[in-house]
């Protein structure tokens, strides 16, 4: 009896193991859903969130054009990243005819699909993305296509010219070897430059901007009926404050920069050391709203606010003062990191001198400040006209001690005072 039970137990265990193996290897189940797929402006660039059916609230930045698409796709839950994903490759069907926006019960906007492109003036990874719609979108696309065609033609011509060049070089060296007059060294043809800008294909979607408010959004089909599952809350939010924030790179740990976003923040340096400042314009957003803007499946606290860096501040100087005295005025410079040679671990950060090193690449640019071991310093941005940039001031203080023992001991000072008073009173009696 016991033997049979043991066999049954082992069999059950192995079955479970096999089934779990199967389940791990198996693809997660996919469900057909109507989802919102957006391209939303996040202050720096366009993000591409999608909203599965069980997400009821869409977040967009107010007063900016955003792109709305409503599609039918296959949605599945991906346990490894713990999020819902869309299988666009399997199903990516545009649905609906008209997108409506309501304020309360009143329809304040009715939108049809329009042509749109994204224009990247510095290439796909260069930032500064722009959205164009309608005829302008078509024009931009045509401009890009023309530039691309021109480039391919130039590439063609280049290859032909390069072939000729190779032949000319070969002949040149042969003449030299044979002692014949070679003439001038053949000139290598220049490689054509590819277009530095990029434009996406023309797509159709609903494109509009809204002032800050909480709206309702819904899709209607060509018969004017509301498409089920498309009614959602739409929160258009704005930033609360603007300011200047800093990325701060400490020389001793350059891969671990800090940020000083709030004007009330103080930068503490351990004793003396070098800091590199990178100023940015910044906006303050509600944490929940901003996090969900680019990823509706992320978290955030509705009672918290975060600073978001928008773009670097350029053409400024940073003034360092101690009290009322200006002690330094620093400019932005490029720097590179040089690893120490040999078996020693470590690196040094050096100024990239373009004259000495014209082909060198900077690892970062920044404003360098060597913090002395004592004192209290104020850093502030000044524009090209000498005007102080609002909200750009930060205080910098070196921490003068690394020994916390005295701080612990001093905390008993109150007790010492109390004991003295207590004893004096008893003695006095």
């Amino acid at each position, binding site marked *: 009896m016991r033997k049979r039970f043991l066999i049954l137990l082992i069999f059950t265990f192995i079955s479970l193991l096999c089934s779990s193996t199967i389940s791990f290897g198996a693809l997660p189940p996919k469900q057909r859903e109507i989802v919102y797929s957006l391209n939303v402006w996040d202050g720096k660039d366009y993000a591409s969130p999608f909203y599965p059916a069980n997400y009821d609230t869409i977040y967009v930045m107010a007063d900016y054009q955003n792109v709305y698409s409503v599609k039918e796709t296959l949605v599945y839950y991906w346990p490894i990243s713990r999020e819902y994903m869309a299988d666009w490759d399997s199903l990516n069907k545009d649905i609906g005819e008209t997108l409506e926006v309501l304020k309360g019960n009143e329809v304040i906007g009715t939108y049809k699909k329009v042509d749109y492109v994204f224009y990247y003036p510095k290439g796909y990874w260069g930032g500064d993305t722009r959205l164009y719609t309608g005829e302008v979108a078509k024009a931009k696309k045509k401009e890009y296509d023309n530039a691309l065609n021109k480039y391919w033609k130039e590439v063609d011509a280049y290859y032909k010219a390069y072939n000729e060049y190779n032949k000319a070089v070969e002949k040149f060296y042969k003449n030299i070897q044979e002692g014949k007059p070679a003439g001038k060294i053949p000139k290598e043809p220049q490689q054509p430059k590819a277009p530095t800008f990029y434009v996406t294909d023309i797509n159709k979607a609903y494109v509009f901007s809204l002032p800050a408010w909480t709206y309702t959004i819904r899709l209607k089909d060509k018969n004017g009926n509301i498409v089920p599952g498309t009614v959602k809350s739409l929160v258009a939010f704005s930033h609360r404050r603007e300011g200047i924030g800093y990325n701060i790179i400490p020389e001793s740990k350059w891969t671990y920069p800090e940020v000083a976003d*709030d004007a009330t923040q103080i930068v503490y340096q351990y004793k003396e050391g070098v800091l590199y400042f990178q100023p940015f314009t910044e906006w303050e957003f509600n944490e929940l709203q901003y996090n969900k803007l680019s990823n509706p499946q992320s978290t955030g606290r509705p009672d918290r606010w975060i600073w978001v860096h928008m773009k670097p501040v350029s053409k400024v100087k940073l003034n360092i003062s101690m009290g009322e005295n200006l002690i330094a005025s620093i400019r932005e410079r490029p720097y590179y990191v040089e690893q120490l040679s040999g078996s020693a671990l470590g690196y040094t950060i050096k100024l990239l001198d373009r004259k000495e090193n014209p082909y060198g690449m900077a690892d970062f640019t920044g404003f360098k400040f060597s913090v002395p071991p004592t004192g209290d310093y104020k850093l502030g941005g000044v524009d090209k006209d000498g005007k102080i940039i609002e909200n750009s001031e930060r205080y910098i203080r070196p921490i003068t001690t690394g020994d916390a023992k005295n701080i612990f001991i001093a*905390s008993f000072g109150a007790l010492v005072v109390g004991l003295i008073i207590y004893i004096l009173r008893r003695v006095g009696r």
Partner: protein
Amino acid sequence: MNSLAYRWHAIRAIIKREARSSFFGLGLYIAATIACFVASFIFNSYINTVQGNNIMVMTSPLNNPLFYAVIVAALYTAISSSTALSREKDKGTLEILFYGPVDYTSIILAEFLEDLVSFLIIMTLVTLYFVYTAITTNLGFSITYLYTIILAVFLAASMSSFGLWLSSLTTRIRTSVLLFILIMGGFLGIQFLEGYILTLKPENLSLSMIYIMGIVSNVLRIIKWASPFNYLTNGINAVALGSTSLYLENMIGSLIYTVVILTLTVYTLKWKGVKKP
């Protein structure tokens, strides 16, 4: 002299007595020491952070340790006030006071103001410690320290008034202390619970859970108004934001809270009586 002048006279006499007792006792100094000791751990963590990372960016580094120091000082004030009336009633000395020109308002105001005086003495000692630390480490002082201290007085007022009300309800010191610890623990728990709920993702909850969470959230929002900790947290946020309107709003809220609770305490003491049980 009119009634107000007589009342103020009685208040002054009782404050003088109570303050002498506090000043020459050890409780005040032990509370200040605990406050400074707790703050020292936070200062130590700052130094370790700066040492380890070479850099630390922070708004008003004194505010966080000050927050905890204020909590300790305010708790001492509140525990002291939560036993003030019950101790006097238990010993019979409250009855003796009422033989004379002392009424309910004067005894409560006297205990309340004396608690504030004790709180200020503790905060003075704490401030001396903070000055020492700020100078030796170069963490530095900012004007926000003063704003936080001012706000802290209002918090202490709220805590003290609440403690006095509990003291007026009970006749035994032990009951007062237990009730105080229970309720204060509850308030702190409410703050943490609310913080936890805010981190939950509604998308991952079932409908019924969302509904329950909604109710709990609203109930907590109401109960929070009874918690004196709420005023300190919001006030410190206001200081960090640099928002004068929010700061004043909290101060006024705290003041209203204090006045309401003190008034309630007067009526409770009248109802319960002052005779030794």
